[in-house]
């Protein structure tokens, strides 16, 4: 047993990675801005400095826990330095706390209070940087950034993307997307984890509370609310209740009091998703096509695939996410049932997720030119709306949800935790394949919080191989192995956020991220246990919905309203790059050099093309350009000759391209002659 002396007390420890963890374990909340056990150690905020006997002042986060250390955490000098660091940070911080979205959950504000920083003896920020509100999901306010790098690391390390990084240096350093572009112009997948770890209001969830109230207060509009599974086990945290405790009943009461017309459960739509997605899977599994099938409920993951792995777009389940299935059926069918025009029906989602805001705005999800989901409110925002009304949430009498879409089985409820979709699909598939009733509905193999879980299941003699991942960096890694043929699966569930939707960035901010996510997950499993039904196929409301409107899973009507198609997407917006510019040029030739085409050799093609154009002496007529992505990645390398798209252009097809170009030139000349 190792021990160290902390402020005179002998503390024993075992596996702790660093002195900071030992100190916190000993009941001392040593402050930090830049330390997260899930991320790499950065060591920049200097708040966790301690005095180590024989070594002097060091940051506890990067001092390895060693036997026999003697540590002081609270000396006059340490306090002076911490307070100075806070004062310096505050001087450079836009201190409009009263109107800040993070007031009350801001670590900087909290520590400034704790340390009693009352006087800032330095000047203000030199320049006010513009606020970036371009993203559907997030708002970036550089004036509040304290450069702790938490967002940079979570985006790179957990999501494997790296949308944000530091730029410039010294006192001019900022955190920004590439070329200081706006978030909607770059490869952000809107997962919002950056905002979840941001200690201040520099990255916040886009606030759409006003739009929600506006609809609620509009008498002419019927407001229908859908509540995602993960919301019920986290909203209570906003009112001092423990995480993991389901507050669905109180939530229903509160929403009605607030003036909402109908309160439904997204888990109903999740049950529907299970039916559709499982049927789709079984069909693919039996025919051996488009495997592995990837889930598509997570909009961050979908955008990730569109940007980086367009070649597997066909492997994504074509099912819309539960949110969008709900929106579609509400606008297409429920409005009819109510006998009101679709535009008088307002669908408001309560989601644990920021990417859902982006998803709701996608062109794919519209009915008669209007979005199926009108507004997406995160758990955080809902908590604030309830606070505003003054409703004593913790003491509300629970009420039940409205029918028909208020009825859900446990299958739809566990969608909110990593492994839940897989388990729900297994519960369906198992019965369908074996034709026998499934008694033990718990599939322990797909539960738990490891980054990647792999399991095989025997169904009537055939083996189904399943992988469950959360965190897009894990997903990218697994995908690499799958593409390289090192591993093979039939079904892969991907959720972008740690822990699945329970860890979504729209959830109440928690200091103990991992712990609260796991409590919330357990809460969902408990809810499943308490419910009467655990399988989507048991849901009577789902079955009657099929009978009334769309026949059966996979039917044409189902495809029309519950499925979709995704396309590839540029990673970063930019201009095409001119390689030659002749005023007489009449044929416009673009060669895509985006990642996917690049890896398939488009640069070589471009070079050969340029050479050939020069050699054939038609360079006067050809305007050759390199495009940064033509969004045809699956079909690359891609060449565009005026408006003719040529896909899969390997080196051997150069003559074809040349032929096409010359053909175009000849035609134009003919036109001119006339």
């Amino acid at each position, binding site marked *: 047993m190792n021990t160290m002396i902390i402020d005179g007390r002998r503390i024993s420890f075992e596996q702790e990675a660093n002195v900071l963890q030992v100190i916190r374990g000993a009941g001392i909340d040593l402050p930090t801005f830049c330390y997260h056990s899930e991320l790499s150690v950065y060591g920049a905020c200097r708040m966790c400095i301690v005095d180590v006997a024989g070594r002097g002042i060091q940051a506890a986060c990067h001092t390895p826990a060693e036997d026999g250390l003697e540590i002081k955490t609270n000396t006059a000098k340490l306090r002076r330095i911490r307070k100075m660091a806070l004062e310096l940070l505050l001087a450079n911080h836009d201190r409009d706390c009263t109107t800040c979205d993070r007031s009350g959950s801001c670590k900087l504000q909290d520590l400034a209070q704790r340390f009693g920083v009352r006087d800032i003896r*330095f000047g203000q920020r030199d320049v006010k940087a513009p606020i970036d509100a371009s993203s559907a999901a997030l708002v970036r306010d550089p004036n509040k950034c304290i450069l702790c790098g938490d967002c940079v690391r979570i985006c790179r390390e957990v999501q494997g993307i790296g949308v944000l990084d530091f730029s410039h*240096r010294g*006192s001019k350093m900022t955190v920004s997307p590439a070329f200081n572009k706006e978030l909607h112009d770059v490869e952000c997948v809107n997962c919002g984890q950056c905002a979840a770890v941001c200690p201040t209001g520099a990255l916040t969830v886009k606030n759409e509370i006003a739009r929600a109230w506006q609809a609620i207060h509009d008498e002419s509009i019927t407001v229908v609310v859908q509540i995602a599974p993960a919301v019920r086990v986290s909203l209570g945290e906003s009112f001092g209740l423990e995480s993991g405790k389901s507050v669905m009943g109180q939530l229903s009461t509160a929403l009605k009091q607030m003036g909402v017309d109908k309160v439904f459960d997204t888990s109903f739509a999740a049950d529907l998703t299970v039916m559709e997605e499982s049927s789709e899977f079984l069909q693919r599994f039996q025919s051996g096509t488009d495997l592995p099938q990837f889930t598509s409920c997570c909009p961050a993951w979908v955008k990730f695939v569109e940007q980086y792995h367009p070649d597997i777009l066909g492997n994504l389940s074509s099912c819309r996410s539960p949110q969008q299935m709900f929106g579609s059926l509400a606008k297409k069918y429920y409005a009819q049932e109510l006998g009101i025009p679709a535009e008088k029906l307002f669908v408001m989602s309560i989601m644990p997720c920021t990417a859902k805001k982006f998803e709701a705005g996608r062109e794919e999800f519209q009915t008669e030119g209007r979005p199926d989901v009108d507004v997406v409110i995160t758990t955080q925002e809902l908590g604030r709306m309830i606070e505003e009304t003054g409703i004593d949430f913790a003491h509300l009498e629970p009420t039940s949800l409205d029918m028909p879409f208020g009825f859900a089985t446990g299958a739809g409820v566990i969608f909110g935790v990593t492994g839940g979709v897989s388990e729900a699909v297994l519960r369906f598939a198992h019965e369908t394949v074996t034709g026998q009733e499934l008694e033990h509905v718990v599939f322990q193999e797909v539960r738990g919080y490891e980054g990647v879980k792999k399991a095989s299941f025997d169904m009537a003699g055939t083996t189904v191989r399943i992988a469950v991942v959360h965190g897009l960096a894990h997903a990218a890694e697994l995908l690499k192995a799958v593409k390289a043929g090192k591993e093979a699966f039939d079904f892969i569930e991907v959720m972008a956020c740690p822990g699945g939707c329970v860890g979504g960035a729209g959830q109440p901010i928690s200091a103990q991220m991992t712990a609260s996510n796991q409590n919330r997950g357990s809460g969902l499993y408990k809810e499943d246990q308490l419910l009467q039904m655990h399988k989507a196929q048991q849901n009577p409301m789902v079955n009657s919905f099929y009978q009334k409107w769309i026949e059966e899973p996979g039917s044409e009507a189902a495809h029309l309203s519950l499925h979709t198609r995704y396309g590839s997407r540029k990673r970063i917006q930019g201009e095409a790059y001119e390689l030659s510019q002749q005023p007489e040029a009449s044929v416009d030739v673009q060669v895509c050099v985006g990642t996917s085409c690049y890896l398939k050799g488009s640069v070589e093609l471009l070079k050969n093309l340029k050479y050939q154009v020069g050699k054939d002496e038609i360079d006067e007529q050809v305007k050759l350009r390199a495009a940064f992505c033509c969004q045809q990645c699956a079909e690359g390398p891609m060449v565009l000759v005026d408006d003719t798209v040529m896909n899969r252009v390997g080196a051997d097809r150069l003559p074809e391209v040349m032929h096409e170009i010359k053909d175009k030139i000849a035609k134009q000349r003919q036109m001119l002659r006339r």
Partner: protein
Amino acid sequence: MIQSPAELQNLRDRYAKGMAQQKAGILVCAGTGCVASGSLEVHAALEHALKEQGLHTSVQLLLEEESTGGVTAVKSGCHGFCEMGPLVRIDPEGVLYTKVKPVDAADIVAALDNGEPVERLLYRHPATQQVFVKESDIPFYKHQTRVALANCGHIDPNDIAAYIAKDGYQGAANALSRPPQDVVDNVLEANLRGRGGGGFPAGRKWSIAASVDADQKYIICNGDEGDPGAFMDRSVMEGDPHRIIEGMLIAGYAIGASQGYIYVRAEYPLAVERLRQALSDAEAWGLLGDNILGTGFSFALHVKEGAGAFVCGEESALIASIEGERGMPRPKPPFPAVAGLWNKPTIINNVETLANVPDILRRGVDWFKNSGTPSSPGTKTFALTGEVANTGLIEVPMGLTVRDVVYTIGGGIRKQMAFKAVQIGGPSGGCLTEEHLDLPLDYDSLQQVGAMIGSGGLVVMNEETCIVEVARFFMEFTQNESCGKCVLCREGTRRMKEILQRIVDGQGAESDLGLLEEVGESVQAGSLCGLGKTAPNPVLTTLQYFEEEYLAHVRDKRCPAGVCPGLKTFAIAAEDCVGCSKCARVCPVDAISGKVKEPFVIDREACIKCGACVDACKFGAVVEVA
């Protein structure tokens, strides 16, 4: 390809004899300073003059059997006495010509025959007017002991043979013939301390790295000499690149590394060029690559160009930079000697440190410890600049006093002005005053007074230098060069600069001095890396030693040195002004107006107090008024 130590020795002897058989050797300084002053044209003129005289000229070292008895005229590295450049040295006598112009070439060549040096080109002591023929007699050189700089200015850096003739690679040959641990022990025993900053014993680093088991280890030579006012590493890299290669070869062998990187500052293109040349020559001669000198040891070197960031002089930032990232220091531990470049054990030594290694191996530990002090053995190079009579690069035994350096070698203060302070160790160092003139220059003595030896920049200041303005200058430098990672350094240096700017602008308050100290102490104690921890030194030392001057600025709104623009006002004395308009022409903001041949006037509102008019006026008509 040299295949054995014996072959190396043999080659050395034949080159040395070849050199001795030549009539003369002419070394034209081709360091950056002299090149800027036109030394390449001088070299060309000398070649031309030699040809005219019918002398057989060689531009590289000749072997014994190749020797013609003619003249070897080569371009050398920096002699260190940049201010007197272009410099030309005549061997074997060691005559030094200063401020040579192409037109002097014929006379220099003629002098080779008649034995009478060209007197007008000899160095003349500014105070005593004494004329010196030999370089080694000039006071600037006489009191130096050159080890790291031994060959700088004395050989052609682009000629590997010249290095070999000066016992080059003998240290490596010696090391390679012994067990690696022996070599580590040697350096440990010599107590060779890091010449780039903190003075951490190189041998200790080596023994840590040597003791770690790893499939790959690296040696990095830190040539990111970023301290303003320091150029010793540049001179060694430009003037004697093989010495660095040899030092790295020895270090690599000692710790078991087969790969090395020389990280050179972006601002030193000539050093990069010379190192690249030296690397490829060493490979061609079998002194780098596989099975060096037939010992079975293999070692490969790469030159890595920095991209302009002072902080990359910090070990972990340098590593991040080689790995292709922003040069931001990483938390330690782990230390690079355990997990450095690509997470492999890595030794990073500064150029000058490595330049000392070959001689320690060749001449022994006792020889090394013979100079310097017990706790700081050996010599140290200093870049002597500022308001000192003889600026340039020097190398002296550790423990010499500031007075020795500034007065004996440096020739005292320019223009007979009074000594005020010497800034030592660049942005990490401190300012020392008259009371420190007898302080020995070694690691520990300097640390005790709040300064540090740093890389060895010595900037001498006279009574016309404002110490507060100098402190502001350093804070401006560090806040620009701070990587921005840790809060205290990023925000602290910026606010310290802000306060100092306020003071020199005449807006300071007495409470600012306490605030400066408070911020400075926090930055010093709490920053992540060495750059941050030492950044407040120039301010804290000046606050301690020049408190009166600070008080004059904030309390009396007066700059005793008459430098701070915010604290002075210029006017033109009408009785002295002849109306030549020169002041109006040099004024950068067009604040001076008037009619030619009539007195001019300064618009006080527009004046930015740069002092250009004062310097321009030949009649002393522009005066400072209260």
